């Protein structure tokens, strides 16, 4: 067997991928949200669209992540969450998240982000108080995990734009879908 390359650390991963100027990224995301608000007018619709966009991004992102980071198969959901928090967020957003609030069965946890490049300079106006500005992130996680056979549900618990002290999203594993083969073995 050829020698396996060890998985990279978060910082090494971040340094090895192409990066873009953080302000350009923030301003582009802000422009997307603004345009969605102008086009759709309903805050709930915008939340759904952001989640859908995130889902589409996540399904594609997970392949790039697995290819570049060389992580081995995760044994359980706890390890998955750690990998997402330390390597996933670091590679794509440049920040690490902390994983907290595990429930008794180990199927539900929270990712806490102190620092979020999507929301630099942003202040929600009074007309958009129901807007979940970072909803694209919840879509990304949901999409990525679905591609590795885990159905999850992601909700936002704390949001700094609404006055909380950090960003917290709750990820709940609904079920692990085993891989289905398109043919039966006994045929």
């Amino acid at each position, binding site marked *: 067997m050829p020698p396996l390359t060890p998985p990279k650390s978060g910082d090494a991963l971040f340094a090895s991928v192409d990066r873009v100027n953080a*302000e350009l990224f*923030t*301003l582009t995301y*802000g*422009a997307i949200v603004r345009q969605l608000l102008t086009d759709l007018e309903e805050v709930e619709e915008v939340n759904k669209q952001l989640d859908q966009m995130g889902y589409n991004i996540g399904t594609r992102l997970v392949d790039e992540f697995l290819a570049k980071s060389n992580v081995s198969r995760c044994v359980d959901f706890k390890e998955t969450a750690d990998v997402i928090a330390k390597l996933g967020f670091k590679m794509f957003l440049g920040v690490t998240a902390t994983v907290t609030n595990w429930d008794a069965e180990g199927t539900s946890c929270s990712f806490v982000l102190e620092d979020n490049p999507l929301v630099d*300079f*942003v*202040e*929600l*106006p009074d007309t958009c108080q129901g807007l979940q500005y970072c909803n694209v992130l919840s879509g990304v996680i949901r999409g990525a995990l679905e591609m590795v056979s885990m159905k999850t549900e992601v909700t936002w618990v704390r949001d700094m734009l609404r006055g909380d002290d950090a960003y917290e999203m709750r990820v709940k594993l609904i079920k692990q879908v085993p891989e289905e083969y398109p043919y039966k073995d006994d045929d």
Partner: protein
Amino acid sequence: MIVCVAVVGHQNNPLYLQSFTEADDALKLHHIVHCSLDVIDERVNNPKRSAPTLNETFLGLLYPTENYKVYGYLTNTKVKFIMVTTDLDVKDADARNFFRKFHAAYVDAVSNPFHVPGKKIASRSFGVRVSTIVKSFGSGTTG
């Protein structure tokens, strides 16, 4: 002590106006800000010196009135910052420093995707930052 700061857009439309004294003087301060706009226009249209001044953002003392001194700062997008102060001796470096910090706060406020350029600045955190900058004006002479 700074009594008033203002941000005026390129069409001389007010974008932000904040006074830091008791309300009685507020109207007079707004009037002073208005008059200083004329002084800025004059300075911009008739440059005293040649090319080097054209890029100058800090306009310096615009005009001293009875109790106040008015300083101006022009950004490259023709947005003007006006500062009215009651201090009798204001160091040039202090004023420049003030406007530099003010410019940074302004840029952050305008980068908010929900801010419409040309409309008034509605950001609460901009107001808080401006108050902090105003409070630290003059007292931090070493900084």
